[in-house]
């Protein structure tokens, strides 16, 4: 169990790991995450499941090297065992046929978006996906996203791939062109804040999959709390997806920095 069977570098800092975890593969749905811990002295971090193969009993995690633990995970090799994986956790994405779904993925947020795009397409929706990143090498999983999207728009900050510009520009172009029934946004909190402001302007119901600091991932610690619609909710058990227009992104942005200045230990992850 928990053995790494495949490893691939999607970019310099982004690694794809395929891990043998048959029970989790069996139960996992789009939107679920796992908690991963490396070794006795490791910390527990949440990672969204990017895909799973029930026949092979594997799950796929995509990790961006940002903090101590994401480096440790990304540096593991085929054959290594991840000492602790727990899940699948969180509420799965509510997948149903709504019409046209506009998906927006930013950076490594494309990884958790991937299974949602697939599930939304399989549910009979028209899926239009906007992928955005700083530059070409940070656009990941393009083939898989294309497979399940009716249309894909790529936006890069530096114009090295697709169109030069922000994710919101790509989205707005679509919104002005056709009727969107549901938007889904996953990426850095700052990106989700602005995509959410955009869809609010056009009154499009929008889901955001939040990334927050967690310890246990099962509702026990409350580190992941966010304000949604004026109420405190726990990302781990109530989320990770919430109505984006109700989320207090400014608070989330501050809370994500909770462990940066105080200590060299760093919990930030994707």
């Amino acid at each position: 169990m928990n053995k790494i069977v495949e490893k691939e570098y999607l970019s310099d800092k982004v690694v794809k790991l395929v891990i043998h975890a048959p029970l989790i593969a069996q139960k996992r749905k789009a939107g679920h995450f796992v908690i991963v811990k490396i070794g006795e002295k490791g910390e527990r971090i949440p990672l969204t499941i990017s895909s799973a193969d029930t026949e092979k009993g594997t799950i796929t995690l995509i990790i961006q090297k940002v903090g101590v633990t994401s480096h440790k995970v990304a540096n593991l090799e085929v054959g290594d065992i991840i000492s602790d994986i727990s899940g699948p956790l969180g509420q799965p994405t509510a997948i149903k046929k709504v019409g046209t779904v506009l998906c927006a993925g930013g950076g490594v947020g494309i990884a958790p978006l991937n299974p949602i795009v697939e599930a939304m397409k399989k549910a009979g929706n028209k899926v239009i996906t906007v992928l955005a990143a700083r530059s070409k090498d940070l656009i990941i999983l393009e083939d898989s996203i294309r497979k399940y999207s009716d249309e894909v728009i790529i936006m890069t900050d530096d114009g090295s791939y697709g169109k030069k510009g922000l994710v919101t520009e790509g989205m707005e172009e679509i919104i002005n062109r056709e009727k969107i029934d549901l938007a889904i946004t996953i990426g850095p909190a700052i990106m989700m804040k602005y995509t959410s402001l955009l869809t609010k302007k056009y009154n499009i119901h929008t889901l955001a999959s939040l990334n927050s600091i967690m310890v246990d991932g099962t509702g026990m610690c409350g580190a992941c709390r966010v304000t949604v619609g004026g109420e405190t909710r726990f990302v781990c058990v109530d989320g990770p997806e919430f109505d984006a227009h109700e989320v207090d992104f400014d608070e989330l942005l501050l809370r994500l920095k909770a462990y940066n200045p105080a200590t060299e230990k760093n919990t930030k992850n994707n």
Partner: protein
Amino acid sequence: MSDLMSNNIKQDREEEWRIDLRKSIKAKDRTALERIRMPEVEPNIRVKSHIEVNMGLSPEQAIAEAGRCLDCVNPTCMEGCPVGVNIPKFIKYIEAGLLAEAANTLNQTNMLPAVCGRVCPQEIQCEANCFYTLKLHKPAVGIGNLERYVADWCLNNQENIAENKIVTGPKVAVIGGGPAGLTAAGDLARLNYQVTIFEALHDFGGVLKYGIPEFRLPNNIVNFEIEKLKKEGVKFVKNFVVGKTATLEDLREEGFQAFFIGSGAGLPRFMNIPGENYNGILSSNEYLTRVNLMNASNPEFDTPVDMGKNVAVIGGGNTAMDSVRTAKRLGAERAIIIYRRSIDEMPARKEEIHHAIEEGIEFITLTNPIEYFADSHGNVNKVRVQKMELGEPDSSGRRKPVPINGSEYDIAIDQVIVSVGVSPNPIVPKSIQNLAISKWQTIEVNPETMQSNIEGVFAGGDIVRGGATVILAMGDGRKAAAGIHQYLQDRAN
């Protein structure tokens, strides 16, 4: 206490060695002895590390304390024990110097004696019902200290523990590896059931590991008790979230015939006051989990924890005391308890409050936080509090705190630990269709058997009580094990 049990207790008491022992010292001489004080590490030394505060009795002290016990005809102390330990018997074995026998006596009814000897509130249980307390109005026999003495002796003499047992009966699943689950598992294994404990975290012990700090209950003690259970034949599976990794129905298909849910009250409550989500404000669950389970204060471990200089802990329970004393150990210059009632109404054990005061913890009582303020980075830097006065008694029988208008003032702090209670963890209850759940989100059970409304599903501990003590959870686990045994026997016939 059942008639059968009380007959056994009477028979035990009439064994020759006990009669001789009773006669060896006159009752009057026994009652003249002073209660032995538990040796403690000096406050100024212990706050610099996580060393256990209570050092344990020496052999001489233990025998002397055991000598105080009168070996009563009617041992009322036992009525105060949720798991029904044969208290006079194990104490008399100590007095006789027969520690292996004392350990066996404890182990028969108590799966976690080294834990109970440390964290049970004996002063409101066995010791509150001791003859000394009830009739002589003197300090009770130090039952808890003696229990710990025997359990620690066991720990240092591991060769005395039985070899691995083989269990062959029907499969029973225990959901949650905390005190309720460990106790139920131990009892069931002794009844020859094949028990598997499914634990959501990466380590076993539940609140004993993530909650109660090292200075009150060292993790190696918990690990020792868990190793004992493994030898009893209990299987342990970690990182397994029942309701997520597999459902109860999946486990039924795997051949599990009965279930005990002891998934605890793992959902921290907050006060929902302005500013409560600022950085630096965290639940006691988070704070204690970081420090205890994840070892965050040790630089070799990856998990971070902020080490506040001015730390306010909100609440007056044992968890609040654990948090504030932890903050002191992590270097807080000011570690303050803010509690809305007075010190007399605090639910924490007197011993914990006493230790906290010794360690320089400040108590700001009859005071309640109403708002938090933060710097431009969102880090908390101030709490606004309001003074309270005590009004009429409320539903808990304690006088209700009433705010005093115009009494607000600010306290500069850089970390707040909210310790105002916990709610049941929803993951397991929500995953079981048609399970009867109360309006407090606890699982409803028959109080005699601990069976829920679902066939073969039993529950106990905080998932039923909503936030109580280790020993009450253990009592539930024991009762549920009996209920499960009865259920499976009825089914087999």
